[in-house]
């Protein structure tokens, strides 16, 4: 029995070890999608326009697996010490570290999941490992055409150390006296005075920084964040009109089709297998999601298949009996596994081990069907799970994602 090793990406990967082959491939795939993420929607001139905006900010694309950074401003790169290549294609979590407050991380994750604006203080880490406090201002930008989040923008404003009550306790000696005197002066000037004083004392002891539970941003910093956010939004909105794929800061509620939320798309994007989701509530049960691996397997592009029925994979030699079996299972809301001949875009055929399963959402009713494909002749991915188990793993992951992410506030009757 062969023991198969799993490339260890993740928590246990040391910072200095080289990325495994899989990680490189993953990053490579993202990089091909990074530039078009912005230019396809905002035109080729967007990078220049964004470069003119002062401030530290990142733009991320939740529609790409891994939710990567697609733009980093000069100010951000200067503040963090990273180069553009080191940041593009990576997830924003790379700037978190051991003393980053876990609840803040949870809040960011939830704001992304719920597609809303968030402003919190956060401890981030520069490339050289030093921590620093920032005011983190996150907001979504929605596509007017489909109501989905096109991009998230994260503006970051450094919060300098100040002589507030929290850090006062840590001030010792001369520094304390200086601030003590300051507090006895006119209070309205205290802010300005203290800030100036703080800048004179460079904090060389990072441990003190990490021991701080939180650091409040001042009104000035919040204003700087809002101003930068407005400039960025303005630029994005303006340039999106050039391509016709207009964006807005508000989601436009579309009558009829409610698109898959970006949090569901993010979750589905983590499943690195060929599969599609179809929607039985819509006429002709169209495909509403297709994984990258499905596109590679079949040779189609996403635009060509979203909204279409799954049957385009069938062809002249596909057994009618099998198709009948599939339709019957769907009628009774049951899962089925079949083997059928399918056709790629280029006309070539392959034997498809297809597993189809109903997927229920939080209401308990069937919301989608997931179709998981395995090309019989494809090389095994070497990770040790049988093809059937891998298919079931996809079904499980999809079921968890759809059920949890459709949970929303349900009405409650008052007790009689």
């Amino acid at each position: 029995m062969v023991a198969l090793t799993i490339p260890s990406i993740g928590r246990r990967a040391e910072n200095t070890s080289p990325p495994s082959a899989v990680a490189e491939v993953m990053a490579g795939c993202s990089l091909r999608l990074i530039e078009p993420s912005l230019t396809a929607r905002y035109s080729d001139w967007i990078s220049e326009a964004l470069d003119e905006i002062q401030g530290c900010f990142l733009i991320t694309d939740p529609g790409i697996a891994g939710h990567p950074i697609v733009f980093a401003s000069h100010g951000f790169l200067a503040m963090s010490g990273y180069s553009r290549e080191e940041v593009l294609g990576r997830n924003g979590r790379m700037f978190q570290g051991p003393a980053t407050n876990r609840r803040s991380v949870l809040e960011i994750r939830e704001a992304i999941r719920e597609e809303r604006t968030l402003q919190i203080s956060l401890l981030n880490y520069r490339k050289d490992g030093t921590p620093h406090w920032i005011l983190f201002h996150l907001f979504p930008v929605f596509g007017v055409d489909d109501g989905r989040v096109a991009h998230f923008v994260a503006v970051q404003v450094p919060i300098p150390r100040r002589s507030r009550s929290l850090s006062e306790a840590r001030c010792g000696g001369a520094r304390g006296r200086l601030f003590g005197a300051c507090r006895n002066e006119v209070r309205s000037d205290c802010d300005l005075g203290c800030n100036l004083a703080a800048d004179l004392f460079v904090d060389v002891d990072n441990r003190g920084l990490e021991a701080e539970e939180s650091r409040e941003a001042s009104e000035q910093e919040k204003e700087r964040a809002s101003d930068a956010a407005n400039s960025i939004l303005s630029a994005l909105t303006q340039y999106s009109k050039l391509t016709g794929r207009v964006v807005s800061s508000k989601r436009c509620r579309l009558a009829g089709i409610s698109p898959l939320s970006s949090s569901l798309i993010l979750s589905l994007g983590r499943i690195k297998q060929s599969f599609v989701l179809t929607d039985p509530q819509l006429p002709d049960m169209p495909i509403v999601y297709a994984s990258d691996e499905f596109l590679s397997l079949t040779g189609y592009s996403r635009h060509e298949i979203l909204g279409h029925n799954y049957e385009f994979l069938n062809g002249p030699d596909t057994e009618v009996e099998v198709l009948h079996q599939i339709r019957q299972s769907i009628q009774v809301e049951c899962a089925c596994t079949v083997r059928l001949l399918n056709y790629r875009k280029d006309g070539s055929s392959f034997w498809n081990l297809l597993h189809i399963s109903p997927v229920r959402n939080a209401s308990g009713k069937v919301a989608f069907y997931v179709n998981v494909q395995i090309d019989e002749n494809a090389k095994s991915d070497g990770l040790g799970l049988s093809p059937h188990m891998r298919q079931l793993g996809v079904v499980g992951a999809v079921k968890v994602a759809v059920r949890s992410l459709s949970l929303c506030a349900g009405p409650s009757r008052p007790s009689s």
Partner: protein
Amino acid sequence: MLTIKRVPTVLSNYQEDSGESRGCGRNCLGKCCLPVSKLPLYAFKSDAKPEISSSGVDEPPSDFFLNSLLLGGWEDRMSRGLFRYDVTACETKVIPGEYGFVAQLNEGRHLKKRPTEFRVDRVLQPFDPAKFNFTKVGQEEVLFRFEAGEGDKARFLESAAVGEANTPSVVAINVSPIEYGHVLLIPRVLDCLPQRIDPDSFLLALHMAAEAGSPYFRLGYNSLGAFATINHLHFQAYFLTMPFPVEKAPTERIPVVKGLSQSKVKVSKLLNYPVRGLVYEGGNTLKDLSDVVANSCICLQENNIPFNVLISDSGRRIFLFPQCYAEKQALGEVSQEILDTQVNPAVWEISGHMVLKRKKDYEEASEEYAWRLLAEVSLSEARFEEVKAYIFEATGLESEEEKIEPEENKGTPHQSSTTAVAANHFPEGCLILQ
């Protein structure tokens, strides 16, 4: 004698036959079958060298491996009809309110069966092989073994011989799931450990949380007296892709002047939440964090204080809740209205996920109800401070507050631990009828 009626949850298909002893050839998890069996084995990289916790890389391991293994296996068992119901067909919702408690309508979760007696006035009870335990579970309910491996990478073997020398730890399905993917982690199943925390087992649980790599996969533990159903050491786990209310609650760090600075573990108090609890995070290594929490649990066990533990955020944040609901129930101090909803406040309920049996309760579920129920579970402020002091003493910590009056605190925890417990806690002969 005080009694409480309670309807338990069935965790395994074999639990219902607990009275009978089956011969083997049934492919169970006992010494008769397991050592000569083959099961899938997931061997995680053990903590040989110190680890930088939360180095900023939050991604699940490549290909989401452990999750595929667990969810794929779970889906397979579903298709084989091993679960008592399809949990995805159970309606669920977030209760409107500030915290977002999650309620589920599940009429099939609680089995009606003849009542049996089960002592819950003692947190530590010896393992009883005559009662149901996990060695009696059929191997089809097991998904894979989960153990520390050698080497610096995680490994997976689809079919590994268990062998005589090994003490296998297994992950099995929970046949009455609270959510899709609900499993049980049973450390060293053949050793027949009773339901009590020990440092090695707790570390195994933390490793599982870390290995799954998703902040939405949590592990939970219920002590006896805090609604553990079976006196055979086990943890529970499942996925819920949203935060639990308790994870959103604010916390306040407890300043520690000595004891924790070496390991860098942070202890905080939970604020603005109906159940009082401690939150542990940080640590140089997973083991550092694990040991502090395990020692805290052991202190509670030895003082006969029932408790629940929630392992969240991929093993980075651990919540500890001492509780007293069973005692209150025995003394008739819980309102009938709350009792009628038949919610046993174990770790998932305390964390904010409630399974409701009656449609009426589900439709009327409110944050105010959830708060009222959970408030009954919590220790009072005074009692919590006492318990916190025992824990700090037992884990070798000295909090800043204690420094203020050192003379009074010296020796007090020791003296009060035995007498105070007897006075405040379960009257003799307290039983719960199931």
